């Protein structure tokens, strides 16, 4: 397996992603600087977490115009698998590769803790190792994670199964008390219409070893 981790100025989870992909999952991994105009054939491209371009204007708003993003878009259009984690999710939304937008957490706090997330669709390349409804334990660390989209987009995504993760209680039930950031419909992760591009606010790369409290993230990043 060959994976690429895109590095923007201000990315800070690129090394975590690199470590999880290379040392835990055994992939061959390259860092790709944001100024690269090209992207070779990879099995997976990761847009990591962090604060690309200082989150100026809006998280992801400037990163979307990085030269590498044209290559990422072309790669996604060819069917290549892309996962955006946290800031990477924000970038994919700003770039229009995923529907919706992420804005300030409802309580305004930067939240850094483990949360429970339910698998809503296990028919995607990133969730095929889970049961539908399985509850994952994953860390979040973000200030702008409140997912929003308009009614029509929400209905279309629900009908197509593009909502792939929802924040939930430990028993898997939906409860606003367990929705950490006020996301619409407790949405924690979504896919594009072809399911080759996903974004999520939790950090699977930080949940790949038992020492770190959870190995659930490993199955999100494990590819066939």
């Amino acid at each position: 397996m060959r994976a690429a981790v895109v590095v923007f100025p201000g990315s800070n989870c690129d090394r975590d992603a690199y470590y999880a992909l290379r040392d835990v999952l055994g992939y061959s991994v390259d860092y790709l600087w944001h100024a690269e105009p090209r992207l070779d054939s990879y099995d997976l491209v990761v847009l990591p977490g962090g604060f690309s371009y200082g989150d100026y204007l809006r998280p992801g708003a400037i990163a979307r115009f990085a030269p590498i993003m044209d290559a990422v878009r072309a790669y996604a259009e060819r069917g290549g698998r892309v996962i955006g984690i946290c800031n990477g999710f924000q970038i994919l939304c700003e770039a229009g590769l995923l529907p919706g937008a992420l804005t300030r957490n409802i309580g305004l706090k930067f939240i850094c803790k483990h949360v429970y997330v339910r698998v809503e669709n296990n028919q995607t390349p990133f969730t095929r190792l889970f049961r539908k409804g399985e509850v994952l334990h994953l860390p979040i660390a973000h200030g702008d994670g409140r997912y929003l989209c308009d009614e029509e987009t929400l209905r279309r995504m629900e009908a197509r199964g593009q909502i792939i993760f929802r924040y939930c209680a430990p028993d898997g039930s939906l409860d606003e008390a367990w929705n950490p950031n006020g996301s619409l419909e407790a949405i924690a992760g979504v896919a594009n219409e072809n399911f080759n591009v996903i974004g999520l606010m939790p950090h699977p790369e930080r949940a790949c070893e038992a020492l770190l409290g959870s190995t659930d993230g490993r199955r999100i990043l494990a590819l066939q």
Partner: protein
Amino acid sequence: MPKARIYITLKPTLLDAQGRTIQNALHQLGFEAVQSVRVGKYLEIELAPDGDPRAQIEAMCQQLLANPVIEQYRYEVVDE
């Protein structure tokens, strides 16, 4: 030189968490008349005198300055 003043705010249908927090703080300070607070961004952009400044600002707002999923914008262009 044309100068644009651009105001970007969350759409009115969306809960503005920052605005609500500021509203609560204002109430605590005794400003009980405050009915609502909306927080936004304000940008000033100077343009070269040639070209259609309004068309350029409109395009900038649509392509970068505002996110149409969650934000709305308005602007005025003045000559200084």
